[in-house]
């Protein structure tokens, strides 16, 4: 609720339902009183309660108590509208007379519709909402691909980017971005900010307009240029500089250089949120061609297709790969152009969202089936009323329409309440911020979402109302009139119909439950997977070293001194540094071959990740040393190169041989550095729990000054260490900021956060489905038992024991449940393959899940059948007989 605090939906409702006369004043009055008197005095919830009761009462007053002049107008007006209004009025009265039924029906629908609205609003924000760029259909993201290595999206190197940009004939322009962390000083505390270097034309290609100031001009990335200029990200500008437009023209000290702020970018994703400060990427003719670091975008020339552009770029790539051996292509370089519509969400996020939307669709279907059942019971109870109306001349169509009007009214009201639930759910999800959902802050109710809700509400009304509507008794009119609502007429058909509905409901629930079960099992498998490292009581944090630390061993001296000080603390068991922590976005890679098999491996050079580490890294992370030795203080980066490698890499390079002491070639094909393997350590999943353990090469930190991340293993809660770290580092250098302080457990947790979120959502939906199924089975069973009260009475009078009767009722009642479970299992079997990419460690046909879920549903069915049967047994046989 932003500028205008009154709920949009209420205004919409008033707009739709009130006639033109007086509407403006009523809406204005309610808005004014709500904003000026109610909201400031009563609190959010009470105020909204007031608002809604006021809106609804005004609507009912204006639509039901029509003034005489309006009544005449209606009669002169369209016949269809007139009867429809009468039908709606009639259903509202009918519902008001049975508030219990109305409440259950509306709540059931609201659950389904609310869940759908909430998920759809996420789907809209993530998948459907247009990007904040001009002409986004001309924008593409550009990657190279290496089919020979199975890499389908490789960032570009700076020289390659330059060549593509200059030689292509299909693109208007290409832009590049790469991340770089910056130390911001001179504004109080030294601060590490997320920075990004962009080619000067980057934001022009996106066609974004700055909020204040300007974007980079095209010459601002030229070498030698004295223009040190910077653009601020919107959030950073708002939070760090309180959104002050006067920031433009001021200067910031970044990595000890002065930069002038020239503008502020608009909010939005992607790209615009990649960094807090953007600076030009100064063109560097010397840059290494084998360093693939640039995220690249391009704008197609008008009328050029992405395919044509790809062919154009691939031709250039072909020339490059022949010209420059350091590209190590060994095969060909392909190009991949992703349309801008794919930028927001990765394939896995998109798929997960569609699966969740499907799941809530199922939930809504279950709710509809439940409602159909309720309406059916209601229709049966009102058989006499219907028969009377038919006898008085109402046509079958007229009666059907009236029933449909009732279920549509319910659908509309369910949609209204559902919107409320959805708003609550969206707020909840936003405040939890589970991670892994792009554009989460932009998720909200908007016109599209409201339209979706409206359609879903009406559809559910139709679906739920169809079955009862076709049950209008017409042939047995006389019997219906005579027997009223206690008659046996149609009860056989009714019973069968209701059992069918229960079967359908159970089947749908089973499918949802199987989905949830599979995700839960996957999550369980994932948390049990052998990570190769220990995360308990470990703390990670980063320190950025400005370029002054590049001289000599200044950087690694500082790292060692700091580690020594940390080690000296009583609660610290071990401490180490690494240049890229596990589970982080950054990655490094090198080709590596064994010296004695170099020729044989030239065709497919293994690609390994590499890390600079200090001597205690393995000990601190609990990675076992399998062979040889680890580093000591004496080992340094550089010649003679000495490395520790992971077990998988060792087996790959020297199958069945002892790798310790053997020679490998590092950066094979690029620099070809000979190195001696001094040790072998256990494998670890450093790219994430779901990815296979990496082939890893470890290099000593000694002498290097890459921005280090430190990891500390403590005896207790590692976070208690935090307050002592800053002063300790400040003693060594007061200008170094400590950032990214997180426990390793926390890092592991957030690396699987999206998975956990999907699992929780499915669990909630499946839980709701289970409750609805329970209510559905229970309702039908109670109904059947009530109908058979006299029969049961007779049987008990004739000597049947309680046990026999209960057993028989329960057995009969279980038939639809069992059939539903069977059908659901078949359905789940068919649908679960859509889940397969979201699973880990189990097959979509995982038998444990199916059996578990089936048992759960069967038990649920059993309970809901048993309770009404039990109640029937309490009936006094004499009383039951007398009723006959």
């Amino acid at each position, binding site marked *: 609720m932003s500028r205008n605090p*009154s709920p949009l939906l209420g205004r919409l409702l008033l707009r739709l339902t009130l006639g033109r006369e*007086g509407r403006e*004043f009523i809406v204005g*009055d*309610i*808005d004014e009183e709500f904003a000026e*008197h109610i909201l400031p005095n009563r609190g959010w919830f009470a105020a909204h309660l007031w608002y809604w009761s006021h809106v609804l*009462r*005004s609507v009912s007053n204006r639509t039901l108590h029509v*003034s005489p002049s309006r009544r005449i107008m209606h009669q002169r007006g369209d016949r269809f509208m007139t009867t429809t209004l009468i039908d709606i009025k009639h259903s509202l009265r009918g519902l008001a007379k049975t508030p219990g039924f109305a409440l259950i029906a509306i709540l059931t629908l609201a659950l389904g519709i609310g869940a759908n609205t909430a998920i759809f609003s996420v789907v809209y924000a993530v998948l459907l909402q247009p990007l904040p760029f001009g002409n986004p259909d001309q924008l593409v993201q550009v990657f190279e691909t290496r089919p020979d290595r199975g890499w389908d999206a490789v960032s570009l190197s700076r020289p390659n980017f330059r060549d593509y940009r200059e030689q292509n004939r299909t693109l208007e322009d290409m832009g590049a971005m790469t991340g770089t962390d910056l130390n911001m000083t001179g504004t109080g505390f030294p601060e590490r900010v997320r920075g990004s270097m962009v080619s000067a034309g980057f934001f022009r290609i996106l066609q974004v307009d700055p909020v204040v100031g300007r974007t980079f001009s095209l010459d601002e990335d030229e070498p030698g240029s004295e223009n040190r200029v910077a653009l601020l990200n919107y959030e950073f500008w708002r939070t760090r500089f309180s959104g002050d437009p006067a920031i433009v023209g001021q200067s910031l000290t970044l990595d000890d250089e002065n930069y002038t702020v020239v503008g502020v970018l608009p909010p939005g994703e992607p790209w615009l949120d990649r960094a807090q400060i953007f600076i030009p990427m100064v063109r560097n003719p010397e840059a290494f061609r084998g360093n693939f670091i640039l995220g690249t975008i391009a704008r197609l020339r008008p009328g050029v297709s992405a395919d044509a552009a790809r062919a154009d770029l691939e031709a250039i790539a072909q020339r490059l790969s022949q010209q420059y051996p350091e590209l190590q292509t060994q095969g060909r370089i392909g190009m991949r152009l992703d349309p801008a519509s794919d930028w927001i969400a990765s394939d896995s996020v998109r798929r997960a969202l569609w699966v969740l939307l499907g799941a809530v669709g199922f939930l809504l279907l279950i709710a509809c089936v439940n409602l159909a059942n309720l309406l059916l019971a209601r229709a049966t109870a009102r058989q006499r009323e219907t028969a009377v109306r038919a006898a008085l001349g109402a046509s079958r169509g007229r009666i059907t329409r009236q029933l449909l009007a009732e279920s549509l009214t319910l659908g509309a009201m369910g949609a209204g309440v559902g919107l409320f639930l959805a708003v609550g759910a969206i707020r909840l999800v936003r405040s939890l911020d589970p991670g892994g959902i792009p554009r989460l802050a932009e998720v909200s109710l908007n016109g599209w979402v409201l339209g979706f809700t409206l359609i879903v509400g009406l559809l559910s009304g139709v679906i739920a109302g169809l079955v009862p509507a076709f049950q209008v008794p017409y042939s047995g009119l006389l019997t219906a009139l005579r027997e009223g609502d206690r008659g046996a007429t149609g009860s056989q058909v009714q019973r069968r119909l209701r059992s069918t509905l229960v079967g359908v409901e159970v089947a749908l629930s089973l499918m949802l439950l199987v989905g949830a079960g599979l995700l839960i099992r996957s999550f369980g498998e994932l948390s049990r997977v052998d990570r190769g490292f220990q995360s308990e009581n470990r703390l990670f944090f980063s320190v950025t070293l400005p370029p002054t630390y590049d001289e000599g061993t200044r950087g690694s001296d500082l790292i060692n001194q700091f580690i020594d000080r940390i080690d000296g603390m009583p609660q610290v068991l071990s401490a180490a540094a690494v240049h890229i922590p596990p589970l982080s976005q950054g990655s490094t890679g090198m080709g590596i071959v064994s010296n004695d098999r170099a020729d044989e491996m030239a065709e497919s050079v293994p690609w390994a990740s590499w890390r600079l580490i200090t001597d205690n890294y393995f000990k601190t992370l609990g990675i076992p040393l399998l062979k040889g030795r680890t580093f000591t203080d004496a080992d340094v980066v550089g010649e003679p190169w000495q490395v520790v490698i992971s077990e998988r890499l060792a087996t790959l390079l020297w199958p069945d041989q002892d790798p310790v002491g053997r020679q490998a070639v590092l950066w094979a094909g690029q620099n070809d550095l000979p190195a001696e393997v001094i040790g072998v350590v256990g494998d670890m999943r450093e790219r994430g729990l779901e990815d296979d353990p990496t082939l890893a090469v470890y290099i000593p930190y000694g002498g290097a000054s890459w921005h280090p991340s430190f990891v500390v293993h403590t005896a207790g809660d590692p976070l208690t260490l935090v307050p002592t770290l800053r002063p300790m580092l400040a003693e060594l250098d007061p200008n170094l900021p400590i950032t990214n302080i997180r426990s390793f457990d926390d890092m592991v947790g957030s690396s699987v956060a999206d998975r956990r979120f999907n699992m929780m959502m499915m669990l909630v939906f499946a839980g709701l489905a289970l409750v609805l199924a329970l209510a559905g089975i229970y309702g039908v069973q109670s109904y059947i038992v009530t109908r058979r009260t006299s029969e049961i009475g007779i049987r008990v009078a004739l000597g049947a024991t309680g046990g026999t009767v209960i057993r028989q009722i329960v057995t009969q009642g279980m038939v639809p449940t069992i059939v539903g479970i069977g059908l659901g299992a078949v359905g789940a079997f068919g649908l679960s393959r859509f889940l397969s990419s979201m699973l880990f460690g189990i097959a979509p046909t995982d038998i444990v899940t199916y059996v578990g879920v089936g048992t759960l549903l069967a038990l649920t069915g059993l309970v809901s059948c048993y309770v009404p049967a039990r109640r029937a047994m309490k009936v006094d046989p004499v009383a039951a007989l007398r009723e006959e």
Partner: protein
Amino acid sequence: MTTRLGEFEQLLLFALVRLGDDAYGVTIRREIEARTGRSVSSGAIYTAMERLEARGYVSSTIGNPTPRRGGKRKKHYRIERTGAEALSRSYEALHEMAKGLRPKLTNLTSQRPATRQS
């Protein structure tokens, strides 16, 4: 011929007399709620006012929009002479009927129904 005023219509007209120039939907509603404890809906006010206006008891003028009302205009109401006459007739009648009954009424409302106890 004049129709009699309903109770709600009387409340509305009294509110108009009290509020004078400041009478429009919000103030009327709040006046009635503050004095009688009865929460009436805006819709009901306008429905009744339209009826009263058709009978010539009240007149209305359209005011200016304000931002607090989401840019919607106000409708001000004034009681007309015929309305004032009808209201005072109703009031006289009620007053006559009620004269001197306060103690009796209090007595009646404070009485509890006899309970049957053995």
